[in-house]
């Protein structure tokens, strides 16, 4: 569904991505793990055209979307839940959700999707008139995910959705990710919590210094000795 070929990105002199190739299959969950600064966020930002790649190509459903304006990529069904949530603090919860559906015209379906999001995150319903900036961190994360779902995406990409959340909330988030996937939405997940991510994922990619150093089935990577020592060593499994 999403295929990246030999993607490179430079920030000024810094080469953040040095020829990344990866593939996300339809209706599956793929995860991208790696140390801080490996280039995970940069990969997602390049897919959504927030940074311009200096080389390589990105295909979505067979179409070359490299360098397309961000809004056209979003219109094709790719959404990004950015690192650090980035809800609009000066807008209400409801307005944030409304912007998630910005490009959609099917208003009757949109109102049903509000209900779907409120079902996933009942907290948001209680607080729908509150300014998003006054929500707690966990609630903001829920809003960021809910807002992405309002776009009815084919592919949802999440950049560290569990960052800074309490273990219980992290479990909820992982549960919701598999629920979203069960609805037929393809997922590309970035996680520090490699253990939980690999358990959930059909495919895993390991990124090191701007390159994919290893890939395979989620469960297989979980068994891999190298990965166990590098990424799973001290990570506590909070997904149980």
């Amino acid at each position, binding site marked *: 569904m999403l295929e990246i070929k030999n993607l490179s990105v430079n920030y000024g002199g810094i080469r953040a991505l040095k020829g990344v190739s990866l593939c996300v299959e339809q209706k599956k969950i793929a995860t991208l793990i790696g140390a801080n600064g490996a280039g995970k966020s940069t990969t997602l930002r390049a897919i*959504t055209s*927030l940074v311009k790649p200096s080389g390589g190509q990105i295909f979505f459903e067979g179409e070359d979307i490299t360098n397309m*304006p*961000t*809004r056209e990529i*979003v*219109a094709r069904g790719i*959404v*990004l839940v*950015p690192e*650090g*949530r*980035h*809800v*609009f*603090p*000066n*807008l209400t919860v409801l*307005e944030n959700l*409304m*912007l*998630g559906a*910005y*490009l959609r015209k099917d208003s009757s379906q949109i109102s049903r999707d509000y209900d779907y999001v409120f079902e996933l995150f009942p907290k948001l319903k209680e607080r729908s008139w509150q*300014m998003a*900036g*006054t*929500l707690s*961190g966990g609630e*903001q994360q829920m809003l960021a995910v809910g*807002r992405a779902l309002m*776009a009815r995406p084919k592919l949802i990409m999440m950049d560290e959705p569990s960052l800074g959340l309490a273990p219980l909330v992290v479990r909820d988030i992982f549960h919701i990710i598999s629920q979203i996937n069960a609805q037929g939405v393809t997922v590309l997940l970035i996680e520090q919590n490699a253990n939980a991510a690999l358990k959930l994922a059909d495919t895993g990619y390991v990124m090191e210094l701007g390159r994919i150093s290893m890939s395979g089935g989620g469960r297989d990577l979980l068994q891999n000795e190298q990965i166990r020592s590098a990424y799973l060593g001290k990570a506590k499994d909070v997904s149980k």
Partner: protein
Amino acid sequence: MATLFQQFTNALALGCLYGLVAVGYSMVYGILHLINFANSSVFMFSMYFAFYSVSVFYLPWYFGLIAMLALTILLGVCIERIAYQPLRSAPRISLTISAIGVAYLLENFATVVFTAVPKSFPDIPFLQEVIVLGNGEWRIQRLVIFVVISMVVLIAALLFFLEHTKMGVATRAVSKDFETSQLMGININAVIRVTFIIGSGLTAFGAFMWGLKYPQISPTVGAMPGTKCFIAAVVGGIGNIKGAVLGGIILGLVEVMLVYFFPGLSGYRDIFAFIILILILLFKPTGLFGAKVTDKA
């Protein structure tokens, strides 16, 4: 009493005028974090547009106003497209310098094309007529009524747009976060263009009313009202619409009423705005309606 009333209505009209233009400064600042120095020149051009429409091409004043609005908006949008849009990801200071450059360019261009010899703003007897109320003591210029009503209608429409339309919500989103707005599928250039349409339109309205009060047009005519309206926006808390309106009204009232009560100060009337600016910057730098901090992220 009757002159007090008349002075008060004059002050109110001037304040509404300042408020309208201040809202334009405030919106542009809100979205681009740019003090749009070029707007003084847009104000000046707008007055020339009115002069040519009405005094040269003999349009009736209401068509003249429409032509003036359309041309001013076109000018504002062109400035944005040519001088600001290419600098979208440049540091803020580049944008500010670009705005100052445009201001000088337009001013000099105006001197060449219109010459420095002042022209006079067209007379519009209908609006300048004084209506006599009651026993003949209470007098009010029709312009005052026109200004106040325009202000209320335009600001109400603007607030409705920002609060209740999809584009309006998108405008507020873009003013907070370009990137995330793009991730929603918002065309930020289109949103910014709309902001400039609104800002330039309000500036044209302001210039129209200014011309009727102070009918002399020259290439530097925009500097004083432009600066005062910007001050009004800062006084109200830049980026805040209701604040800009209030800042404008305060400025108008102070300026006219101080001179009324202390006629000896009349030579200094242009200084009041700056004194207010300094006081605000000293005691409440975020302005009267300064941005609330709701950002936790």
